[in-house]
């Protein structure tokens, strides 16, 4: 075992004081983690993303909240007040005093997963770990074995939460490499509706943030799930979203992956009821020697479902961008409509892109297509702007912005949208000017 595997497995504390089902699940997940081990590039799903730098680390469990001042307060400083509820998790644990409540529809539950497990475990039990399967998925297994806290959102049938719910994960501890494993569980009943935004922030320290999100959508439910990942330059970020959609439900899963020395975001969705719709998308940006990896797996299990998938990547410096998307249309899933697109922009000589958009189709009456492109900024467009007196840096920024804007604008809640614009613009050579021009 590598030092990372050893230290991660050593953090296992069993399930003392917990219900037997949870303790059993933890033990099973640990066994699955030990069996799988951290993936190497020999693993097809990790072929282009090396975990070599992570595997040599010795990762400690996050310090208890009373160990003094955590990173959350500093990371949240200067941020606008949230539009709706905001739950803050510091090194994976809920911090009530930093969080903001908001009114909820009758019967709805929003709070810490740890609280729910303590006080109402039976509400969590039918769903926790049901979608986030642990076999062969090392990080998900690890999360299942070591999860302590996270968010739990339960929406009864018809409950609609209009304001976006913000989940802020602030991670990092000075002087030691910690590993945190937050879990988010969302159960949206029939016709329920909510927008949920995960904001992942971190300090400049080395750490592993390994989050798992499970989204259960009942019939006709509508969920918008956003991930804004803006972690520190030494962070290892691995997050996986598992979703299951009943008939006529609609899920929007969108993410901006902007930080971390290694960031991997996975979406694994199963369209299990007729007429379900999924829109999955994301923007990944990396420079320096960073690696960013977007992985999606969408399964059409029944007829008449729709998937639209769009991912864009912008790579600079010696960065590596990886996209792997697979859409599987199972036998009998007729009238499926699926589109998948991945476009990449290479800004430097040493940046690398590896992309594999994949379709696996076992039904004949379907409309499926995919596309992938890799290219650089259009010389002609650049020349045009320069000939109009636009400076080089600004011209380049404008063109990059034009490429990225579609993805930025998919972050719809106003406050987060403004934040997303700033974060992306800050990564452009003349981003400030572009923002002013676009304002």
């Amino acid at each position, binding site marked *: 075992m590598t030092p990372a595997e050893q230290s991660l497995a050593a953090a296992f504390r069993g399930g003392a004081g917990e219900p037997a089902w949870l303790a059993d699940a933890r033990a099973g997940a640990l066994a699955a983690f030990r069996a799988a081990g951290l993936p190497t590039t020999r693993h097809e799903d990790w072929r282009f993303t090396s975990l070599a730098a992570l595997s040599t680390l010795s990762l400690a469990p996050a310090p208890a909240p009373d160990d003094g001042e955590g990173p959350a307060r500093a990371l949240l400083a200067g941020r606008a007040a949230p539009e709706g509820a905001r739950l803050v998790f510091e090194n994976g644990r809920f911090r009530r005093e930093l969080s903001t409540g908001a009114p909820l529809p009758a019967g709805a539950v929003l709070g810490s997963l740890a609280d729910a497990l303590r006080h109402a475990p039976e509400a969590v039990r039918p769903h926790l770990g049901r979608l986030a399967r642990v076999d062969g998925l090392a990080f998900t297994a690890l999360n299942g074995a070591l999860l302590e806290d996270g968010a739990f959102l339960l929406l009864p049938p018809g409950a609609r939460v209009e304001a976006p719910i913000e989940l802020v994960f602030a991670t990092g501890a000075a002087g030691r490499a910690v590993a945190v494993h937050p879990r988010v569980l969302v159960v949206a009943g029939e016709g329920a509706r909510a927008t949920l935004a995960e904001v992942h922030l971190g300090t400049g320290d080395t750490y592993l943030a390994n989050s798992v999100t499970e989204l259960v959508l009942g019939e006709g439910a509508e969920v918008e799930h956003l991930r804004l990942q803006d972690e520190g330059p030494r962070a290892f970020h691995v997050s996986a979203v598992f979703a299951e959609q009943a008939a006529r439900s609609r899920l929007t899963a969108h993410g901006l992956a902007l930080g971390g020395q290694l960031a991997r975001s996975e979406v694994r969705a199963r369209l299990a009821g007729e007429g379900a719709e999924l829109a999955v998308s994301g923007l990944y940006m990396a420079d320096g020697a960073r690696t960013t990896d977007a992985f999606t797996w969408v399964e059409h299990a029944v007829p008449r479902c729709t998937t639209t998938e769009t991912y864009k990547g912008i790579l600079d410096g010696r960065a590596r961008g990886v996209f792997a998307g697979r859409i599987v249309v199972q036998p009998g899933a007729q009238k499926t409509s699926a589109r998948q697109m991945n476009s990449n922009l290479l800004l430097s000589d040493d940046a*690398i*892109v590896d992309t594999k958009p*994949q379709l696996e189709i076992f039904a004949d*009456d379907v409309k499926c297509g995919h*596309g*992938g*492109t*890799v290219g650089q900024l259009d010389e002609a467009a650049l020349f045009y702007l320069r000939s109009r007196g636009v400076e080089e840096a600004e011209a380049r920024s404008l063109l990059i912005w034009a490429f990225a804007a579609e993805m930025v604008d998919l972050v719809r809640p106003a406050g987060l949208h403004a934040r997303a614009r700033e974060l992306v613009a800050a990564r452009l050579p003349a981003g400030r000017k572009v923002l002013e021009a676009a304002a």
Partner: protein
Amino acid sequence: MSTAEQLKELTEQKYRYGFVTDIEEDKVPKGLSEDVIRLISAKKGEPRFMLEWRLEAYRRWLGMEEPTWANVHYPKIDYQEIVYYSAPKQKKALGSMDEVDPELKRAFAKLGIPLEEQMRLAGVAVDAVFDSVSVATTYKKKLADLGIVFCSFSEAVREHPELIEKYLGSVVPSTDNYFAALNSAVFSDGSFVYVPKGVRCPMELSTYFRINAKDTGQFERTLIVADEGAYVSYLEGCTAPMRDENQLHAAVVELVALDGAHVKYSTVQNWYPGDAEGRGGIYNFVTKRGKAMRKAKISWTQVETGSAITWKYPSCILQGDESVGEFYSVALTNHRQQADTGTKMIHIGRDTRSTIISKGISAGRGQNTYRGLVKMMKGATGARNYSQCDSLLIGDRCGAHTFPYIEVRNPTAKVEHEATTSKISEDQLFYCRQRGISDEDAVSMIVNGFAKQVLKELPMEFAVEAQKLLGMSLEGSVG
């Protein structure tokens, strides 16, 4: 007749070219060992370097594992149950067609390849490989006048050892992959072409392969070298008799296109696909690769309709600046056929260009996978790739899969990949019916239209055969 019945009837068509020719054969005992390899090499009277090369490949093969990443499923192959060498017994080298075994000639006639007629009418030189040893090489003189060497591999080893030693394994090293290593160790024969500098080969060169002896894996080795500025178009076509046991075919094809040369390689593959339940049929595990030097062009065209399993990725290493690679493919799977095929375009030189057009057709319970790699290396400044992979599904129990890999290491390189999946629409069929066109003809027409972009790349002789093949397998198969 309802369309469902037509589908059933037409997709259950029997393989038309199934028969066994009884010819006295010269075999080595089944199984694989260094002794068998020495025996093969001795039987073929090979020079020392060939034997060493084979043994080295064999030793490396022993340490390799059979790949499992392809999207195909088959029972484990027992490599000790295979006969690695079988040659039609012949008393002496043949001087003319008259000396060819009449039984053999009848076999070719049954396949619709009357050798003499083809020579006379089509102007095609046919190097017919029957099982493992070339028995008839024609038009040799005409080619020889131009300095073109077109002969069986064994002959090339004897007559042109310097060319073989220089180019053999230069594109597909003996240790490239499991099946290539196996081929390198035991390959029995194949074809060799050398086109000298600046020479344009005046006719399409063609080899008809035939797998005949029971339990004999066929391990072909083809090497085509086009010297600077030369041009050659090579045709490969296959049919095989019906068999109950699976037969392994692990061929290796190497193309070398030196500066400014152009090599065009076309294949129509129609080996026995197994019966409707998937019993029998050929395992077609082939390594095909070409290397293009400066301003050279390599173009692969394939129509794959046969074999139980196809595992094949004709590839281009675009090493020289401004070299060009092309891949045009139609792959059809019916019954329980499985195909995992595609290409690799490795762009190394500046301003290299590649085009990939792949058309997959799945019917019955067929599984069709496109798997392709486009790799832009660091030095591939200004390189360009366009890939298009379309799938047509006929019936609701088949599968079409698209697995492209794009790896880019140079920002000026442009890569585009597009893929679509569709079925034959009711509207299209209705339109044809309305015009008095039968369902059968309509489907054949639509499928041929779907594949046209690829078929038009085939030389005339093949285009006709390919269209017939597609039509034959799919007429009337309305989902």
